[in-house]
């Protein structure tokens, strides 16, 4: 999983600390999120997306092999 959190954060001139405070998590969690090393809950993903005025789809990019494809 890759994320565009850093890019969006830069767009709004927001530090990791600012974002962490806005969504109510530790800065360390933001670091792990940005590196794609942490799988957040849907609630946290939603809160981060909201704080960065983006959608979850825009922020979190799943590589193709991890995509769940349902075929009829």
């Amino acid at each position, binding site marked *: *999983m890759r994320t565009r959190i850093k890019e969006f954060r830069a767009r709004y001139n927001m530090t990791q600390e600012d974002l*962490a*405070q*806005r*969504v*109510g*998590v*530790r800065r*360390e*969690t933001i670091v*792990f999120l940005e590196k*794609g*090393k*942490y*799988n*957040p*809950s849907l609630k*946290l993903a939603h*809160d981060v997306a909201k704080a960065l005025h983006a959608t979850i789809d825009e922020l979190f990019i799943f590589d193709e092999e*991890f995509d769940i494809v349902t075929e009829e």
Partner: protein
Amino acid sequence: MKKVVTGKTKGAGYIIGGLSMMTMGLAMYFLLGPPYGQSIGLLGGALVTGLLFVSAGLYSYVKEREKPVVDERSIRVQAQAGNISWFLSWLLLGALASLASLGVLHVSFELIVWVVWITMPWVFVILRFIIGRREEEV
């Protein structure tokens, strides 16, 4: 800001814990008889450790007042470290007690309980650190 556990709460907890430790040390020193009462070593240990807790608490209370200190990731890490420590405690207790009952280990059961009790918090802290640095599969 969202309602979360901040350094203010954490600091208050540490301060209360440290003060309780110091109070208990003093109470034991003056109220109990030897070996736990009137022991300057025990009193000194309680006062120094208590003071360390109070200092750490004051730091959090002042410096991390508005900073979130607990979140879903830290809770997940704590839970994993806690589960492993819990399992290891019983494993170690069982293994040592079995060895002692078989006569392989010449120690009392009381000593085994003390050793496990003293070791496990450190195991928990180390595990928490290791798990906290580990990458998750995402």
